[in-house]
């Protein structure tokens, strides 16, 4: 039985090694925030992080991620208050919402490496994630808002404060 390190916890899953990570997360671990969209790595709805990289969990086998650090939308932040999640609410991004876990996870991987992306970098990074409600412009705005907040937070974190 493979053991997964997911959202900081170690959990064993009753699934064959060639089971897509997506289904192990959703069914064995009953974390349903990660969505099935195409089963072929074409839409991004199933995006999770493996060692900080955004990957398509429908194309990632359980046996290949044992021992690696997996993060899903449920584990992105303790209280659903990652700057991206706050920005998604501030910009009122979701319509049906089904693709948004994947969008947020894809965007989080970008901002963890580049907290000051250009619009072109955002588009290039996000182009594999389909949104059938076509909320793309709000997704862009929310990413820029979150990036700005993260820069401000890290700048203020570096400030010397009187003790």
């Amino acid at each position: 039985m493979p053991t997964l390190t997911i959202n900081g916890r170690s959990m064993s899953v009753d699934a064959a090694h060639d089971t897509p990570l997506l289904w192990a997360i959703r069914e064995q671990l009953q974390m349903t925030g990660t969505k099935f969209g195409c089963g072929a790595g074409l839409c991004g709805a199933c995006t999770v992080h493996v060692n900080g990289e955004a990957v398509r969990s429908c194309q990632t086998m359980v046996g290949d991620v044992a021992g690696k650090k997996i993060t899903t939308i449920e584990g992105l932040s303790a209280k659903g208050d990652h700057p991206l999640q706050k920005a998604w609410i501030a910009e009122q991004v979701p319509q049906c919402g089904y693709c948004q876990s994947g969008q947020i996870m894809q965007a989080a991987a970008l901002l963890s490496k580049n907290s000051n992306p250009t619009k072109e970098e955002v588009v290039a990074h996000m182009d594999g994630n389909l949104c059938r409600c076509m909320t793309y412009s709000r997704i862009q705005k929310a990413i820029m808002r979150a990036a700005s907040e993260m820069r401000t937070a890290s700048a203020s974190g570096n400030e010397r404060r009187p003790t």
Partner: protein
Amino acid sequence: MNQHVKNVTAETTDLSRRSFLVGTAATGLVLGYAGVPGVSEALAAPSNFEPSVWYSISPEGLVTVTCGKADMGQHIASTMAQIVCEELGAKWSDMRVQLASNDPKFNDPVLGAQITGGSWSTMMNFDAMSRAGAAGRIALTEAAAAAMGLPPFYKDELVVRDSVISHPKSKKQMTFADIVKSGKATKTFTADDLKAIKLKTPDQYTMIGVSVPQLDIPSKTNGTAKYGIDVMLPGMAYGKVVTPPVRFGATVKSVDDSDAKKVPGFIKAVIVDDKTQTTSGWVVAVANTYAQARKAADALKIAYDGGPNAKLSSQSLLDEAKRLQGLDDSGQYFVKDGDPNAAFGSAAKVLEAEYTTNINIHAPMEPMNATAEFKGDILHIYSGNQFATRSGAIAAGAAGIDPKFVVMHQMWLGGGFGRRLDADMMVPAVQAAKAVGKPVKVIYSRENDMTMDFSRPLTYQKVKAGVDGDGKIAAISHDVVSAWPTARWGIPDFLTPSVDQKGPLDSFTVNGSDFFYTVPNHYVRAIKNEMAHNATPSGQLRSVAPGWTFWAVESMIDEIAAATGKDPAQLRISLLDGAGKNDGGAQRLRNTLLAAMGLAGYGTKKLPKGEGMGVACVSSQERATASWTACVAHVAVAPSGAVTVKKLTVATDVGTQVHPDNIRAQVEGAALWGLSLALYEKATLKDGGIEQTNFDSYTPLRMSQMPEVAVAVIANGEKATGVGEPAVTVVAPAIGNAIFNASGARVRALPITAEAVKANMKA
């Protein structure tokens, strides 16, 4: 025993004859109409009460509105809560929503069924939800006045705001929670009392017109929103459907499950016996997990009889459409004003053109799914669905039971766009659950979802226009040949009598062609393409008929403008003169066109060579429930024929804005849908099957393809209209017209390709 009865045929729930009850139940205050099964019983026996009336207020003061509409991203549940909240006087942060079951008590007060589509929800529920909110406020206010010891005539001195009722003179106040806990708020409103309630006037609104935070959005940023696909029941198995290579008409000859049996967790291969004729030739591979079900499905060896449609292609459907259009006695008349044929005889100029659209697939991001569980007498279905009334009946048909024994549990919809008006997913889930004796969740693969879509049909339209000596349009005759999406439902109330009394026609194939332009001689013929109807069972795709009828009408108007040397926008303005039956609507449509022109800077600047602007304006959806939308598209056309859409400017007249930010989101999403259908989405039929199977071959718009979109919302105080669909329909003709103005190439087929543009450029 549940009380679900007679929920197949749409019946009007006539609220004008019903009383509205406000009463105390075990869970707090409940408010709903009497005479609708459930409500009066709930009040009579509070211990058994399920908080599933229109809304309830808990002893903590939380107001929960039950939404009988499917929420597929249009935030309609939140909108319903907002309308109630306005009149009730509650605080927005106290508002909650829940999704209704298919109990008839949640039927739409106008439509008499649970169906979500047509951009109807806000316009048809605004008044009833407002009165329900106001009735609650009145009952709470009277109870508060009594509790505060005020004589009744001091009632008018009470202020209701943010869930608090206060009496400024005596400085007394009570919260909604206090009043509910007192148990004193009980009142019955007769139908006349309800009608007599004076609703707020727009200048008194504090909620309507405010972009409050949508109640469903936080749950859609942290993974907690539950969609149909997320349903988990104890002891549940999973089903993967195996669908035949032919879209419809195939039958299963044999199933060899010897290899599937080697797949761990495999339970059974269930051949679907679909007496509802929603599906044909389907098998469900059932296993302990979905991953195992997928493996087992792949291992099944199934032999099919391809049936009567196995040789058909898109070309066959188009050829058949042309043949039918050429026959004088085809179809039925939807519009028959004057005598176009006589007018063509005396016209100075006659134009004729053919317009086509290819098959389009809904492809919502959440693939179709349903979970079925038999519990005693009752069949429970968990699925996000736009038409619970009919889907419950289909589930019953698949189970061989009476529809009154089916309970539909509504979930959030991972996209609808009309796809979830259909009920095919109920059939394999029900039959698999029955066959294996446990709850089964059936999930379509993307390939199943695409190849078995109830698609927007392939359409063929021929438009003939006659222009008189003064350059005025004297006549238009318009033939629309397509599969008939709504006729397939078998519900007579959804069909429309033909004006030539040749029996009912499916107006969801011709809506929009009955435009608001003044054209004295005007025919529209609805012609059913029986071959397409059988081979590609079609459905309602966001905006339905206006998605193709306006492609033809709005392209032809520009063709006439070009042939008569007129500015296409000015020609439209002259046609929108508001004469006769077009009075009111025509003027509103004209104004949206002017707004879009102004916002886009139409005609104010010289564009570089190879660029052009095009206009279109539409009265989607049905004439009786019209919205007013105009678009100016700005495109650049390369010598290769490649089209770049630089900007879409959309103006829409919504009457009254409930939630301005949501309207913008819907209009922008709809406009981008229109762009996606105009340039990027195409499905084709070959050997009876849909050739596109996933997002590599069927390719909706991606972020990198998004142009600038400018939206102008006109709120002129008229009644609220729908906004989810109209902007879909206006974009393709605006782009087509812009391409003509940029390059001289007239394109008449959707989607528009670079090849077609290049081929039609003047050398």
